[in-house]
């Protein structure tokens, strides 16, 4: 394979990896504070994309001659806010109640919640059952560097994702709030004894994770120029896989997992003898094999059982 094509695939893989990593971070954050898998997270991503699209359509109809930069800003802001709010409401109303139920019940409940979100968008978003074209919010400038086409919007999205991850890193590791989040993740009862407001921290985590998911949704929309109501299913499954192969509860593991999954998909699409349609089959098969080799992921949570 020649270098140009390789570079193109690497860039493609990096974009996908960033998207998956952002979704996986949400899974791992929620698992950290509540010890449950919120499987509706993939659909939260989808809601984020639709919130952005809705805002765009509304802005276009009310202020047709508004500047693109402002449109972009408003879309991102509105989408993030809406999805943060959604995350908080769902966490308060449903997910925190499930804390004491067996893992299977929580998994199923959150999957059903995902179905509710999906169906709600399909039914109540205008023409929601058909794929929606996503507006080009970012300038479509591109450069050719040594034969490789670099799209400005991809670069911007990638940098945005990096900044977001960096921001989460700083928030979790350098602030008092982040310390509280980490404390709750480590031992919620002890954290409460030390005066940490448990519900507040959980809700904050959900706002944070959902906001990141909204960004991933917008990124997905801009990158593929199209969104649909069922895109959250596969994104959720991939995000969950990424979080698990990285090691649940570990943010850096989730990021690594996201890039690993994108890498596997890219390999499956280009480097293997069979058709590129099998890329997901290959990626999920490798995930299963990885789970057999390292049952708790790369950066495993420390687990010991007291009998």
């Amino acid at each position, binding site marked *: 394979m020649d270098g140009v094509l390789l570079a193109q695939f690497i860039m493609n893989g990096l974009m996908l990896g960033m998207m998956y990593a952002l979704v996986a971070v949400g899974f791992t954050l929620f*698992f950290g504070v509540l010890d449950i*898998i919120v499987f509706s997270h993939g659909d939260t991503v989808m809601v984020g994309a639709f919130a952005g699209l809705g805002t765009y359509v509304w802005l276009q109809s009310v202020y047709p001659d508004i500047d693109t930069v402002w449109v972009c800003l408003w879309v991102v802001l509105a989408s993030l806010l809406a999805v943060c709010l959604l995350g908080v409401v769902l966490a308060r109303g*449903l997910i925190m*109640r*499930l804390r004491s*139920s*067996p*893992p*299977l*019940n929580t*998994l*199923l*409940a959150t*999957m*059903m*919640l995902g*179905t*509710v979100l999906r*169906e*709600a968008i399909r*039914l109540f978003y205008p023409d929601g059952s058909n794929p929606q074209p996503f507006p080009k919010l970012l300038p479509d400038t591109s450069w050719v560097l040594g034969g490789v086409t670099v799209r400005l919007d991809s670069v911007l999205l990638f940098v945005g994702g990096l900044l977001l991850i960096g921001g989460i890193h700083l928030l979790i590791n350098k602030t008092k709030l982040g310390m509280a989040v980490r404390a709750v993740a480590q031992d919620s009862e002890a954290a409460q004894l030390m005066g940490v407001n448990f519900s507040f921290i959980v809700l904050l985590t959900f706002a944070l994770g959902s906001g990141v998911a909204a960004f991933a949704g917008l990124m997905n929309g801009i990158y593929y120029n199209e969104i649909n109501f069922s895109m959250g*299913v*596969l994104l959720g*499954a991939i995000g*969950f*896989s990424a979080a*698990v192969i990285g090691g*649940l509860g570990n943010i850096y593991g989730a990021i690594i997992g996201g890039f690993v999954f994108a890498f596997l998909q890219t390999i499956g699409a280009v480097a293997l003898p069979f*058709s590129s*349609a*099998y890329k*997901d*089959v290959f990626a*999920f*098969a490798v*995930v*299963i*094999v990885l*789970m*057999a080799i390292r*049952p*708790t*992921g790369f950066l495993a949570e420390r687990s010991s*059982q007291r*009998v």
Partner: protein
Amino acid sequence: MDRSREIFVCLLSAMALLVFSVVFLLAEDETVIGSYMVGGAVLLWIMVRMGVYEKVITAVSHHERLWASLVFIAALILLFFFRDNHYCLFLVGTIFCYTIAVLGLNVQLGYTGVINFSAASFFGVGGYTAGMLLNQGLVPPFAAFILGGVMAGLVGCVLLLPVLRTSGHYSALVTMAFALLFNVFLEVNESFGGPQGIAVPSFSLFGVDFGSDVEWGSITGSFYLRYDLFILVFLAIVFIMVRRVERSWMGLAMDAVRLDETASACFGINIVRWKVTAFTMGNVLMGMAGALYAMMLAYISPANFTFSDSLLFLSILLLGGMGNCWGVLLATSIMVVLPEKLQFIQEYRYLLYSLLVLLMIVYRPMGLLPRRTRVVTSEDVA
């Protein structure tokens, strides 16, 4: 309550169930269906409040053999009643197939605690195996039905290592990944018909083709009648077997593995052995059910075996009450018939249905018929 009264209660409730199912299946008008649903729910609520419900359950559990035969007879009457109604017979056949599959899931998850998020995939392995074998003309239909189960068991063996090594969420991921992989694979693989799927020849037994309409003397009926009768007999066998497993020392060992792995290992129970047994047994049941379902449906495509279908199977198990075979039968009937009967809310039915399951998990996580604690003394069973 004395014995004769309990038997009377069993008879009465079996008849009530039969009448309700016939009336409900016959109803087509939306207001009528709605009022039946509301009426049934209100009646059930009143019975629960007055303590009658508990008494009925106790009476039934004391005379399970009688109850089982009553239900079997009721099912036969139901089939006879609907003998020329394609649609109702097909629904009943679907209920039977799903029940067999969920009984398999029950052995895995309800008894042994092995998480399986790919039930529909094993169901599909059985269906596709039967379809491909019959299309090639390699084996007779009955062998295809058996081989569907064998194949599902073998495919399950591939997942054994990761499933055994992982637990909880991690185990869920392995089976979930398999379910997605399986579906994508069917979609893109041309030799399995791709997204369009494949036609499946009809079942036949002792030279009787199940694809033609029934003419037994003066009785004529839909071709689904043969399928339903055959599947009903198979379901009865599976049901008895699964109940026997539950009540035997095997079930005891499986319960122990589910409840506490460490403790059961300390008591000398071989955890790996029981997990493997339960997982394989469940998969074989799903595969055989899938093979029958495929032959009854005559046409299968990847859309029949998606991840959401696996979720449906799990929801049925949870709704019925984890580990309770009767609960499985009840919940399957509800989950299969309700969406069909709720056609009038067409668009909104999946939304309502997922909300229903969600509410169920939050407010009655034990399911409709929670599994009863194992009876140890013999006087209670007598």
